């Protein structure tokens, strides 16, 4: 008779041991899982500094509730203070008794008080946190981020969800908002250009103060800009506007791109699916629909001179104009003069963008990074002088969409 193996003889003991171990784990700490009723998840975070330079972290919490009454999530805003994000989060924990989880955090908003500090260092907790990852979107706001999160929106909508919608991929693909997540911001920060960007949120109505006009002397009327959540609350109309873009040099705010500059930046930087360009004035005012967009920033060194080429090509179609209908009816091709007008408008936006970034010494277009990555043999000789010696070429080509 074949002798039974040791394993077979011990199998009963193994099963008993397994049951004992699993029971012990279950009855001691529920396998390390957390009780839903003691849990809250942070869906959005606002970061500010107070007068004493202490970090004020405003966390918007989604608190899971028993589903019997139909409402299974409630939103609440809790503020924590501390010397760092981790310290402030601990303060949130102390105040609420919840274990705040960052794994569902999808939005980080930094307030004005953070702009003169290296934001990357201030948010180091999020960059190194394995649980939250680098997917949360990041945005700057006028005033205090805490005030923004404290706004009560009707219909139970949270500020995080409202702003997150405005910064959605779809909004980004329409060139109306410079959506950035922590990864985008960090990559810019660590690039040779040391320049990064994030959308700049302004609120009209509510308590965060209203906003109007461009930040660098330009009016921001006209089409575009990611604007939404216009909601009546006690006679007050709260609107979030994310059309501008805050640009940072080594993590410190360098300036805020106007809506047009941000639009040009998005055309060059983003994967734009379809957008609209308003060009012409008065009777010639035309709105062009632009699709199949290809934007690119490239750098060449010609005879020792760095040449930055900002190029954009797309298919364009007249979407709306004030020209008499009977002249246009039946025309399938977009008139060449309209295409040229639109090209000139986009070139003007690009020119403004470059002039502004040059004036604030912020290489958000990435010339230095391109020099390092693609023209590396010139990097050592040109890296210090590139911003001064750079020649910019604009190449905007629109074709009729038919």
């Amino acid at each position: 008779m074949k002798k039974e193996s040791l394993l077979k003889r011990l199998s009963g003991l193994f099963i008993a041991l397994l049951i004992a171990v699993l029971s012990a784990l279950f009855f001691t700490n529920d396998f390390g899982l957390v009780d839903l009723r003691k849990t809250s998840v942070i869906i959005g975070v606002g970061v500010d500094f107070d007068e004493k330079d202490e970090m004020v972290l405003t966390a918007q919490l989604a608190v899971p509730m028993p589903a019997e009454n139909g409402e299974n999530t409630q939103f609440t805003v809790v503020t924590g203070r501390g010397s760092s994000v981790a310290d402030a989060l601990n303060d949130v924990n102390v105040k609420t008794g919840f274990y705040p989880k960052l794994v569902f955090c999808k939005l980080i908003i930094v307030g004005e008080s953070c702009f003169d500090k290296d934001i990357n260092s201030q948010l180091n907790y999020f960059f190194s946190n394995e649980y939250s990852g680098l997917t949360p979107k990041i945005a700057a706001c006028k005033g205090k981020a805490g005030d923004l999160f404290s706004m009560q929106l009707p219909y139970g909508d949270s500020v995080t969800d409202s702003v997150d919608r405005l910064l959605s991929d779809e909004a980004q693909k329409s060139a109306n908002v410079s959506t950035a997540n922590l990864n985008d911001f960090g990559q810019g920060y660590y690039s040779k250009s040391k320049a990064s960007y994030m959308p700049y949120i302004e609120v009209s109505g509510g308590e965060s103060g209203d906003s109007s006009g461009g930040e660098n002397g330009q009016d921001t009327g006209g089409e575009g800009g990611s604007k939404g959540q216009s909601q009546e609350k006690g006679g007050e109309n709260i609107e979030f506007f994310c059309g501008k873009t805050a640009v940072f040099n080594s993590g410190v705010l360098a300036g805020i791109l106007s809506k047009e500059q941000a639009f040009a930046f998005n055309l060059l930087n983003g994967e734009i699916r379809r957008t609209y360009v308003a060009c012409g004035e008065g009777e010639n005012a035309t709105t062009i629909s632009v699709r199949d967009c290809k934007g690119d920033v490239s750098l060449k060194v010609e005879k020792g001179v760095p040449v930055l080429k900002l190029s954009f090509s797309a298919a364009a179609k007249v979407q709306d104009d004030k020209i008499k209908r009977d002249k246009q009816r039946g025309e399938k091709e977009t008139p060449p003069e309209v295409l040229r007008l639109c090209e000139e408008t986009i070139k003007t936006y690009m020119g403004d963008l470059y002039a502004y970034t040059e004036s604030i010494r912020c290489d958000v277009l990435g010339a230095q990074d391109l020099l390092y990555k693609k023209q590396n043999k010139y990097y050592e000789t040109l890296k210090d002088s590139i911003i001064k010696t750079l020649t910019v070429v604009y190449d905007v080509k629109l074709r009729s969409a038919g």
Partner: protein
Amino acid sequence: MKERMSVRQVCFILIAYNAVLKLIIYPSAAASSSGNDLIFPALFDLAMQTAIIWSIAYLSSRTDKSFFQLLESTFNKVVARIVYALFALYFILAAIVPMVEQQLLIHSAFYDTVPSLYVFLPFFIFSIYAGAKSFTNSGRCADICLPVFLISITAILVMSAGQGEYSNLLPVFSHSVPSLFGGALSAAFKYADSAFLLIFMGSFRYKKGDAAKITLSYLFGGLIVIALLAIFYAVYGAMAPSRTFLLNEISVFFPAISYVGRIDLTLLYALDIVILFAIILHIQASVHCLSLAFGWDKRSALSLIVNAVLIVITFVVNNKFSPLYQAASRWFWIPALIFAYVLPLCAWLLKRGDKR
């Protein structure tokens, strides 16, 4: 008749197990040591190890003997037993880093707080059982693991490849050659799969053309790793060193994830099963070597002993992974060089006896 592994199963082990164990923390470490040039040290290690794999596979075409029998016929049984005892020790040591890596990966991906070490201990109940099994069993597990691996890794590649900015890999060779060689050396312990093939010798029946199949399988697994290294750096750029777990982080920017949630975690779960069997292969190899070294066929008892050692080590290195990985990068290339490079090459000098 003694049951043997099939060459197909050896190939599957060299594709799946070879790749998964290099996709946990190694990419982050490679990004840390070699920056945007991280694929070059990896290519160097892969090329070197592929050559060794080919040499062992080709040696298998010249003899039916196992490595133990080759040692025995050239020297004597005592020498063979000593070498196999050292191999057993090597496999135990080689299991430590991936075992702790897997533990940390699970904690990071599936837990939102750091659970107690005791939560990980049931792993050993399975590993005691599976560790006692022979290589034939390892081969059968590989038959199951390969499709799981290929489906999961293909999905991860698809989800991540489009999210990278590949100019992050430029300029090529921005690091000096000595620095890249240092990176290759510190990662050499991750490219030590030929030690397994050496121990497999005699456990599979060689047929004409199998050397090419085995070598290409290893190369295929290695190239999957290289592709994922490149995508990982393209996705995270200079921040790649701070992103610890490639498998948990590389596909998070896939657009659908923001709508449907972390569907990539199901792929990670599947790959974790493959990682589990890849780690257990170390224990099986160690038990196999101990069994021959001590001439003791009680594999269950040997598996208990090996796992007991690993449990003790797990407690000792708990919360000390960073120094552990640094120590492994700094010193473990030496045993890896001996057991996965020198000894396989020395096998050619041993008396092969009857040729096919």
